[in-house]
């Protein structure tokens, strides 16, 4: 498998004060399905933004198809075009991603940037709208959409560019179960269509459903472990250590239970407590 993304000892801090990433080594290969998991503030979004060429590391190297990506290299017209064409970034907050007057404009923005002719751009926009069931929203401004609709439009705006790698930051966060389910099916379908997916999330059930390879970020902003989904989700000690699950005490009638709580795998009662 060809290595698409390679991060070598990447560190990043905000305003030279707040550490966000520390000595990160990570690889993404063609067709990969990688989930970066970690507690809030562990640096998932920052890591994804570095992979998307939206931030540049304070230390370390970011390579895309063996070529170094830096502020300087992305000042080259050809490199910028190739890079942005290959990677699609879906922001955690759809509100910031949607900056065009209407939904249709959002979906057309990317293809027109790619210099596609108008007919093809419109075809792509309408095909994506059909796939995402948002055809009826095409003339709506983004601020008049619900959270789920905004997320669908944000994903659609990236898909119309047909990137080979999709970087999704907390794609299911704050959405209702039906929309979550829709997005999970969409991600599985995109994976089957040959897209490389990199997802930042703390939703362990999403990781389980996608059967993704998993990289765990610790609260010290380091990669704690990279492994297969069952290996990572089965490692209670690791998940406890990185604060993705926690010990929970609650009462059933007269009985007090103590158990590990994650809303996913570990809701197992261990018997009576006091």
């Amino acid at each position: 498998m060809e290595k698409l993304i390679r991060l070598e000892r990447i560190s990043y801090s905000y305003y030279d004060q707040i550490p966000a990433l520390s000595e990160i080594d990570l690889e993404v290969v063609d067709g990969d399905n990688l989930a970066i998991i970690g507690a809030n503030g562990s640096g998932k979004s920052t890591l994804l933004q570095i992979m998307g060429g939206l931030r540049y590391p304070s230390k370390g190297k970011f390579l895309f198809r063996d070529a170094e990506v830096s502020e300087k290299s992305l000042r080259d017209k050809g490199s910028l075009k190739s890079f942005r064409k290959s990677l699609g970034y879906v922001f955690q907050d759809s509100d910031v991603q949607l900056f065009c007057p209407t939904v249709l404009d959002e979906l057309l923005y990317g293809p027109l940037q790619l210099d596609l002719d108008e007919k093809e751009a419109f075809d792509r926009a309408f095909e994506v709208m059909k796939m995402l069931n948002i055809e009826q929203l095409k003339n709506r401004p983004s601020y008049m959409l619900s959270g789920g609709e905004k997320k669908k439009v944000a994903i659609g705006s990236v898909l119309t560019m047909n990137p080979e790698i999709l970087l999704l930051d907390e794609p299911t966060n704050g959405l209702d179960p039906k929309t979550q389910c829709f997005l999970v099916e969409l991600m599985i379908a995109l994976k089957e269509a040959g897209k490389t997916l990199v997802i930042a999330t703390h939703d362990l059930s999403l990781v389980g459903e996608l059967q993704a390879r998993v990289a765990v970020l610790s609260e010290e902003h380091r990669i704690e472990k990279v492994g297969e989904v069952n290996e990572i989700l089965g490692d209670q000690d690791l998940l406890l250590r990185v604060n993705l699950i926690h010990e929970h005490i609650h009462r059933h009638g007269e009985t007090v239970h103590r158990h590990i709580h994650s809303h996913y795998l570990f809701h197992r009662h261990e018997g009576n407590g006091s």
Partner: protein
Amino acid sequence: MANRIPSFLLNRPSPPSLKQDSGRVKVSLVEKGINHLAGVIKRGYIYSELLSKNGFFQKIDSRIKIFFLSFFIIVVSLKKDLLSELYISIFIFLLVLFSRLKVVTFYRRVLLFAFFFGFLIALPSAFNFITKGELILPVAKLSRPYDFWIYHVPATIGMTKEGLLGVAMLTMRVINSLSLSCWVLYTTPFLEMVRALKILKVPDSFLIIISLCYKYIFIFSKTIEDMYLAKRSRMLTEENNKKAREWTAGRLALIFRKTQLRCEEVFRAMTGRGFSDSIKLYGFGKMRATDWASGAALFSIGLLFLLI
């Protein structure tokens, strides 16, 4: 779902190469300016939150610092010679140093504003058609003197010694006032400052407005910066100034609408938590001996500057 994936998404684009041979991307001035300004505002906010942690002056009661700021700004305005202003600058520099602030960052910001709002504004007054005096820097020669409105334009136009001294004086006053204000801003958490102003009987309506503005400006600049980032993630080519201006103008209405909605939400949240039109304070502690001692020391130094 799989059978609904559009056919164009199944086409694998040919592998791109990041060869660097196509010329440099020019970032438009508008874009650079907006992003830079949003960044400066955001950094200013973050620094004032972060830098107020260590150092002796960070621990002094905010009331003392607000009083010191008001008193010293009067001292700075009353001094009439450059040397005294210079002494005050050295004193402020020492305060910045002892407060463990980042000296270069601090003075870069102060000097930038002082250049625009002090030096540049005062510079025309150095010319002999505004300030009469000894001509020391001739700039241009006219065939004869002219009289225009209340001004007399002499045949030789240039800068006078008195004019230049005036410019230097005003610039020094701006530098000193600005660095004092920034020093207080960077060593005092914003909330503490509001509390101190409340104690000093500044009206509540004014305090509510500055508190909301302070937070709002940060949210606003963050929205702009994030939106710029989102645009960059989908931008494949460079954009000339004209296109950038069009994009910016087009987004203004959108940002206005978004911020209006955010504003309404914040107001609803405030109302939901029992907002009334007055600021309620709690637990303003007694001043400690070190606060009084520091206050007395700063006041004495101010008096000393006033007397010399």
